[in-house]
Structures are given as C-alpha cells and as structure tokens.
C-alpha cells in the first residue's frame, strides 16, 4: 500500500501541454500534469495515449508545441536531456542507453568523468561514490562485468544507478516491468519504495492496473492525448481506472451480418515465441480462426501480439507449439510457402515491412509475388506488361490515388499506401488474412474503407485474424476477442460479452468476473 506523501509542494508541474507533430498528428492536447515532491505518481494509459510523449517532453528529449513546464516552481525549458538531467530529472527508457561492451562502472561514468578530455578516469573515486549511491538506493549490481553479459533486470538497475549517481530528484520510468521477470519486478518495487523513503520522486508509466494500484500514491490517466483524470490511488478501484483508461462511450450497435462460420483455417496450439531480447513474448498461446469470422486480438502493445503475428506469417521463428494453416503445418521462417498455403499478411509496419519505399507502385504491387508464374514471360523474365495490367486493376479496384504506376510509393499518402498493400495481399486470393494494426495512422476515409473491406471479406468466408490496438476497431469488426496480456490470453470472449470497462480491465491485467473462454 502507499504511504502518505510529504508536503504539498509541486515538484514538477506541466500546464496545458500540447504536442503537434509536423505532419499534423496531435500527440497531446491540453494536458495538465502535477507531481508532488516525494510521491510515486503513476501515468496510466493505453497505446497512443501520449504517456511516452509527455515524459519525453518532461525529460528534455522533445519540445512541446505549447504549454508550460514548471520545475520547482520556476518555468523550465529543457533543450536537451542533459539539461533536464542537470536540473534533476532523469528518465529510464524502455530501450536502455547502455554501451554494451562497457562495464557498469564505465557506463555510469560516461559523460561524468570529470575534468577535461585527457584526464584519466579515476576509477577509484567513481567507484567509491557509486558504492555509496548503491547502498543508499539499496541497489546492487556487479561493477566490472560488461553489461551485455548481465541479465536485463540488472541492466535496468544500472540505468537507474546512472541517474542516482547524478543526483536526480525526479525519476521517470517508462514501462519498466515490460522486460522483467515477476521476481525482478518485485525487486524493482522494493527499490522504488526505498527511493521514496530517501525523498526521491518517481513517475511510473504503465498500462498494468495491478502495478499502478500497488505502487503509487497518485495516478494520472491519459487517453488519446488528453488527460482523463488525476486521482489519489487509495480512492479508486480497478474498474474506475479501466473506464478512465479506455473511455466509456457506448458502443454503437454494430450491424453484423450473421455469417456461416465454417471450418478451422488457422490453428495455433501452445505457441511459444521469443522476442528480440530473447525473452519469451508469447507463452503457450492457443486459439483457432474459422472461415467467415474475424478473430480480434486486443491488448496494449508490447504484450506479445507483434511477435505472434510475425511468427504466424513466417517472419519470426517460434520455440514451441504448432501452427496449422488450412490443415497443413506451417514451415517456420518461410514466408513463400506460407503464402502458398493461402495466407495474406497486412503487416503492422507498412513502411518498413510492407513496401519498399523507393520502389514504384507497380514494383510494389508484386512484392511477395515476384516469382509467381502469373507474371512470368519468356526466358524466365518478369513480364512487366502483365504486372502493369494487374497493378492498374488493383489501383482501380482499391481506390489507390496515385499519379501513375511509376510513382514512387513514398510519395503516396499513408491511406493510399495501405490500400495498395491490402489490394496486393487480397490479389493472392487468400484463405486467411493476418491484419496487424491495419488502420494505424490512416485518415478517417481510408480507415473506414479498410474496415468495410474486412467485413466484406468476412462475408465471403475468409478467415481473418485482426490484431489491433484500436478498441473501436475490435468492437466494430471482431466476432470473438482474445485479450493478450504478457504473452497469454486473459480470456477469449464473444464480442457481445464485452464492454469497454471489461476489456480495459483485461488489457490492464486484471481478471474479469466474466471469465468465460470461448
């Protein structure tokens, strides 16, 4: 449980913060955020809520478009992270800023060596001070081992020690438990409580309800760039938080035609997939998708859905379990054969994975199909005439607005790019579509177009796996929903059985009373 905070002195105050990116995206709108000295303040929200953006502004990485930040009562304008650090604000990011072959000591000393460039690094003095900091903070870490050999939990401790060594007053942690084992997470909480006792102030970003309730004194909830509320932890329960987090709009009655749900197309059993950090991101997941249904996977990003999608589509190896597509087992890491089995993949990152930005519309229209006999000519050559014909039909059918087939794809709008990708994938006449964040970053028109398209495909009997961070989309499109949290399903429910509050709870890691798995 949380202990009472000391004093009512706002340490950090942000007023009416706006952040608008050059391309027009509004990340934050009129956000107020106040942190009192000595409190543990949780920043809660789902994807795209703006938590990371806000803290980047507070720690000097980004500049706000408008609004003011006050540090210790005075107007502050941090131009660089170093600026903020010197004032006493430090942030531990999700991706650590550590130099791998360096030891912990060297990493912490970097930038703080004292003196000019040519002075020798006084290992002794640094170590002395560091050990003092370690004792004070109750954190332990081996100081002379290259950090790349250390477990992630220890690396995180070193990142924190870096900040403590520099005497930070405010410590911001961005989803710190995302990379930790449960044991390491508990150790972290113990350490954080100890910091609080020594007078440090902590901002803790998370989407996990249990954590935020357990650890914090105060919680601020962000949603879609706006501040939804700032509450004292002891006065709320998880349901209220969940509602703040995901909103409480009434879901418009979605008219969904009753389709004939057919046989199983995709069967996933006990799937285990590792992420890039070599941790298990997907833990024994099992589910099925049938013809004519849309199976939605909801959840805050970073809970394993990306790795799941990559594994099913042949872009990532899996460690254990079985995946069957159309009755036949999938080959690992072989997209071509998986496509041949009838899978189409609308990737999460269309710019990096789904297209080659420097290629033209025509060239991108055959990405994945370049070896197909459909486009072969004499001597084994690529027959561009056939490709052109196909591409022209594609952009006509899917309303891709481009100046011509030879236009470089990077000059298309996001919506048109995605329509091109979708059209191309559907041109494979798939039995199964993996749609990962299909409307991310798109304008309203393109978004609606693609959602209508997916519904239509469902009507034609195609099996669709929809991975989406957009709850509206899940509710609109999915027949059944699996909420993923820390690599496992919190449960699989028919969509009608869920409302925002329930799904918010599940996304935040809390069990719901409606525990019926379908």
């Amino acid at each position, binding site marked *: 449980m949380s202990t009472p905070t000391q004093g009512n002195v706002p340490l950090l105050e942000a007023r009416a913060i706006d952040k608008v990116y050059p391309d027009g995206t509004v990340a934050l709108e009129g956000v107020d955020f106040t942190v009192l000295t000595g409190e543990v303040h949780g920043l809660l929200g789902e994807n795209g809520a703006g938590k990371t953006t806000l803290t980047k502004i507070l720690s000097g990485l980004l500049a706000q478009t408008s609004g003011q930040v006050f540090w210790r009562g005075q107007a502050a304008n941090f131009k*660089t*992270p*170093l600026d903020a*650090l010197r004032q006493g604000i430090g942030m531990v990011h999700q991706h*650590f*800023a*550590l*130099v*791998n*072959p*360096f030891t912990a000591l*060297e*990493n912490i*000393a*970097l*930038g*703080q*060596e*004292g*003196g*000019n*460039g*040519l*002075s*020798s*690094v006084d290992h002794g003095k640094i170590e002395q001070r560091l050990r003092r900091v370690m004792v004070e903070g109750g954190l332990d870490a081996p100081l002379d081992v290259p950090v790349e050999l250390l477990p992630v939990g220890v690396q995180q401790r070193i990142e924190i020690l870096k900040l403590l060594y520099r005497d930070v007053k405010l410590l911001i942690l961005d989803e710190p438990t995302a990379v930790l084992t449960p044991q390491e997470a508990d150790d972290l909480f113990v350490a954080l409580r100890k910091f609080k006792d020594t007078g440090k102030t902590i901002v803790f970003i998370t989407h996990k309800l249990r954590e935020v309730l357990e650890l914090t004194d105060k919680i601020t909830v962000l949603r879609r760039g706006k501040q939804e509320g700032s509450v004292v932890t002891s006065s709320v329960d998880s349901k209220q938080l969940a509602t703040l987090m995901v909103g409480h709009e009434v879901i418009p009655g979605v008219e969904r035609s009753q389709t004939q749900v057919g046989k199983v197309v995709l069967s996933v059993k006990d799937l285990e997939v590792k992420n890039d950090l070599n941790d298990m991101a997907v833990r024994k997941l099992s589910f099925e998708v049938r013809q004519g249904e849309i199976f939605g996977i909801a959840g805050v990003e970073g809970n394993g859905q990306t790795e799941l999608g990559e594994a099913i589509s042949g872009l990532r190896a899996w460690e254990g379990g079985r995946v069957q597509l159309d009755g036949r087992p999938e080959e690992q890491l072989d997209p071509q054969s998986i496509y041949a089995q009838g899978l189409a993949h609308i990737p999460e990152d269309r710019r990096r994975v789904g297209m080659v930005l420097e290629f033209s519309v025509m060239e991108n229209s055959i990405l994945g199909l370049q070896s197909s006999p459909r486009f072969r000519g004499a001597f084994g050559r690529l027959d561009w005439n056939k490709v052109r014909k196909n591409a022209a039909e594609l952009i006509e059918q899917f309303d891709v607005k481009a100046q011509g087939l030879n236009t470089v794809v990077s000059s298309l709008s996001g919506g048109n790019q995605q329509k091109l990708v979708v059209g191309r994938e559907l041109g494979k006449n798939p039995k199964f579509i993996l749609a990962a964040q299909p409307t991310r970053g798109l304008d309203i028109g393109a978004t609606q177009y693609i959602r209508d398209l997916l519904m239509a495909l469902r009507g034609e009997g195609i099996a669709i796996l929809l991975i989406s961070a957009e709850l509206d989309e899940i509710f609109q499109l999915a027949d059944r929903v699996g909420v993923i949290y820390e690599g496992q399903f919190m449960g699989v429910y028919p969509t009608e059985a869920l409302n925002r509050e329930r799904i918010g709870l599940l996304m935040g890691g809390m069990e719901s009373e409606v525990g019926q798995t379908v």
Partner: protein
Amino acid sequence: MIPLALVAMGEVLAERAGVVNIGLEGILLISAFTGTVGAFSFHNAWVGMLIGTLTGLLIGYIHGVISLYLKGDQIISGVAINLFAMGFVAFGIIVVWGVHGAFNLPLEDSLKGWTVLLPPATAGGDQRFVGKISVLLPFTFLMAGFIWWVLEKTAFGLRVKAVGENPEAADVAGIRVERVRLIAVLIGAALGGLAGAYLSVDWNGMITKDISAGRGFIALATVVFSKLNPLLTLLGAFVFGLFDNVGLWLSTNAWANRIGLNYFIRMLPYVVTLLVVAGVIGRARFPKAIGQPYRRE
C-alpha cells in the same frame, strides 16, 4: 614498419570511434609529397615532417566533414581521396621540380643523416639491412602506448569507445558524437600524414609518385589484424613488414626463386588478415556503429 604502424594505430583510434578511413593510402601519398616540398623549400627536414603531418590533418578534416557532418558515405569519400592523391602527387612532382615520377631530396634536407648507427644491424623494417634506426622509431612505440593509454584510461577514450559502439547512448549522456568522432579522425589522419612525411623525408630521402605502395591498404589490414588494439598494431606492422622483406629477400635467393616462393610469402599477410577477420584466428570485434553516419531520431 614505422609508417605502417603509425597509420595503423591512428586508424585504430578512428575506427574505435566508428569512422572508417579508406583514404589512408591517399593521405600517405599526399603527405609524403608535401613533406618533401616543405623539407626542400625550407631546407629543414623537420619542417617537412611538420608540413606532412598538417597535410594529413587537413585531409582528415575534409573526410570528417563529408562523412560526419554532410553524412556522405565514408567509403566513397576515402576512395575519392585515393584517386585524387594519385593524380595530385604525380602532377605535383612535375610542377614543382620539373621532373617526372621521382625527386631526390638533398641529403642535408632529409632525415637520413639523422639516423643513429647501431652496432648490431637493426632493421626496424628497413629494406636495406643497414644498421640504422630512425629517430621516429622510439616515437612510434611511445605513440602506440599513448594511444592505448588514451583509449583505456582517459575520459576522452571512454567517449571514443562509446561513440563507436552506441552513439545514441553517448548522445543521451550529453556527448557530442560528431565532435568526438572528428577528433579521432583528425588524430588518425595526422599520424598518417606524419607517416607519409617519414616515408619520403626520412626513410627514402626522396619522393616517388607511388611511394605509398599500398601501405594505406595494408594498414587497414593491420588494424584488423591487431583487433583494434593500438599496442598490437606494432606487432601487426612488424609482421606485415617482415613478410614483405622476407619476400623481397627471397626473390634474390636462387632456390626460392625457382619455385616462386617469394610471391606466396608476400601474399601471406593478406591471407592471414582474412583468417583473422573470419574469426579463424582470434576474433576482431568492430564497434557496432562503425561506418554509419549518426542521425538523431
């Protein structure tokens, strides 16, 4: 061995910071030329050495600006420097002295007269097995030690390594990435310039239009061979120089000549480097961010 070692240890510093300089060959050549011009014009070998060093510094600066600030490709910039050097030096020899291809420095202007005679013949990589050591030899050893000390023991060295390994982390720690890299490149290029001047003003006492003889590229191999450790560049330079000389000596030996052994001996250093790089002989670990311009997201 001296020029090779100097160039190699300088490049070690630059590569630890993440910058590759393929143009070392060009730097050697141009500095050899300008060093000769300097020694000749001022009738002072030391001035020549200084000018050679400064030339290296200048070229290093150009390479640095193109690769680091203009975000051009480091490899292409290096290749361009080499091309330029080949033409510029040959052209320069003609233009300055009116002779083609080579020019001999008057003895009093070169450092050849400064070499110290030692009773036992000490080659130091010198092609003629005469007993003399250049003044620069102890300097070379000291320099290797100095660079090692800088890398391992000083704050600057820490930053260099950080910048080469993970420039984002260094940036977050408040280090000016391009600036550190530029300094490392400048030091490396200056050493290259010194080595070039040594080649002409000291060792050979003359400038020829191809005096560098591929040493710039051999230095790149030496850097790999020494696993980016400045102390080991001494060993690497010695080994490479040794093989070269053995090969040369073998070409005068009748038996070896008959089976053409000298060709294979001279091939050996490069094969060895390939093996080193392939990890067959030890493992050379290159800084993760080497060769890539740093762009803050």
